């Protein structure tokens, strides 16, 4: 085997050195990347250890997510304003891909700050554009205040965008909630939206996704880990 020695950046222009000196040099020179939604990858790399200190998350079923291309990850909503960030950070660490979360307010300074971390406003045009660009996007189900342990309804318009773009819809159960430190994420089998495997026209996709998330929540793994989360293990 022959090892090539040389400038890795020259060999692979897409390579990003994530070492502290390179991060600092990019910040000072202005050569870091911010995408059209405001996502700043270098900043998330710097803040990732802080997220690790605040939340301890385990993720099961990462293989259900596509290695390339977009996917809409639909999960049950838990209590806590930081929940979307915790979920996205855990998935990003497991997949080594940026994970975007919706529902960011379009108001400074909180909106632009969350967009730096991967958030986007809940606009269908932005969701369409994100999925078309091959991003992993998390969308929460509605919160059912009367039955906190149950999965709520799915947003039909968001699912319609995924079907229109032909990206898989991946159900995910999330256990653990603020202010507890532990989270457990379980990803289920994706719902294929590309023809000919796409759901039949007129099928209640929202109910299917809701049932899949509920099944994951009801599964033994999720229950056991939910118990762990409650015990604060």
């Amino acid at each position: 085997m022959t090892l090539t020695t040389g400038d890795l950046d020259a060999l692979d222009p897409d390579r990003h050195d994530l070492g502290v000196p390179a991060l600092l040099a990019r910040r000072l020179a202005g050569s870091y990347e911010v995408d059209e939604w405001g996502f700043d990858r270098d900043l998330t790399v710097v803040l990732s250890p802080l997220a690790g200190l605040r939340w301890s998350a385990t993720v099961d079923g990462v293989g259900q997510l596509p290695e390339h291309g977009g996917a809409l990850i639909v999960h049950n909503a838990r209590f806590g304003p930081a929940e979307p960030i915790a979920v996205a950070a855990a998935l990003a660490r497991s997949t080594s891909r940026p994970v975007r979360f919706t529902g960011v307010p379009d108001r400074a300074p909180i909106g632009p700050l969350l967009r730096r971390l991967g958030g986007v406003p809940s606009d269908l045009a932005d969701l369409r554009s994100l999925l078309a660009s091959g991003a992993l996007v998390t969308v929460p189900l509605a919160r059912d205040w009367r039955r906190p342990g149950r999965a709520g309804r799915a947003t039909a318009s968001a699912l319609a965008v995924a079907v229109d773009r032909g990206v898989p819809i991946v159900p995910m159960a999330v256990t653990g909630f603020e202010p507890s430190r532990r989270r457990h994420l379980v990803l289920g089998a994706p719902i294929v939206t590309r023809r000919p495997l796409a759901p039949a026209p007129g099928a209640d996709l929202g109910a299917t996704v809701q049932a899949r998330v509920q099944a994951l929540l009801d599964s033994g793994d999720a229950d056991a880990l939910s118990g762990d989360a409650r015990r604060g293990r």
Partner: protein
Amino acid sequence: MRVLITGMGGELGTRVANMLEADAQVDAILGIDLDPPRRRLYRAEFHRVDPRNRERMDEVIRGFEPTALVHIGIYEPYARSSPRAAVARTASGTIAALAAAAEAGSLDRIVVRSGIEVYGRRRGSPVRPDEGVTPDPSTPFGHSLLHAEHVAAETGRALDTPVTLVRFAPLVGPHFPSPLGRLLRLPAVPFSVLADPPFSVTHQEDAAAALVAALHAAVDGPLNVCGPGAVTASQAARLGGRVAVPMVGPVWRSARLLAELAGAPVPEHVSELLLRGRTADGSRAIEVLGLHPPRTTHDVVRHLYEWGEIAYLTTERMEAA
């Protein structure tokens, strides 16, 4: 193809004329504008006409009998005109050019230079709109562009002719008169410390190539053309070795005043870009027009700062020249 180019005196109009002169499918080119072309043209005929002079516009255009119209006569506030004159020239020129070209009777395609300012950046509007988003401009320049789009679309409907609305991200370049480019080249660049939102830009060469491709494709509807990626104002300042000056709240007004005194007045749409950002999804144009991927926003901004210093000739060298 007999091509009429409005706004031929601008950097973009002249470049499009250059490209069409080298195109074997183009039989004749006529240009009109307030200012003369910025480079030497060989085949194209140019008439210096104020776009507000409807009679003269009508006379020149009818005599030419164009089969294609490339409407680049869109005046950006503080680029080559004051904000008030820009609106008047854009509106009058659009109505006059389209009416005269339609009345000439042989028009079979229309291409309009528009901008992603038509989407607006109101609170709650999409961050990165695609062509499916309904325009909702929030600045005078955005309204001006949308008016031009409406006039062109109406004309196209009446003639049953395809109208391609090419919506560019802000055009900047070292020789391109643009209020955003001038602001970014100041020694100190203001940015919103609370937001510093991302924006995309387009290179003038990519814009010209997109207009020529749109002329040949004759696609009906809007197409966004943007440099992939984005930068923030503070980032652009650092890329150009400028000082990024954080601004907040009422200090913005002072910053705009100082920028104007420094020769870089900030119109509403540029102020909105700095406070709310401006990007769009440009993937459809690449697919439909078969364009090469445009230069990235980072590359366009770097190119903006590569404007060489003026080299003053010494007496000896002048003699040698």
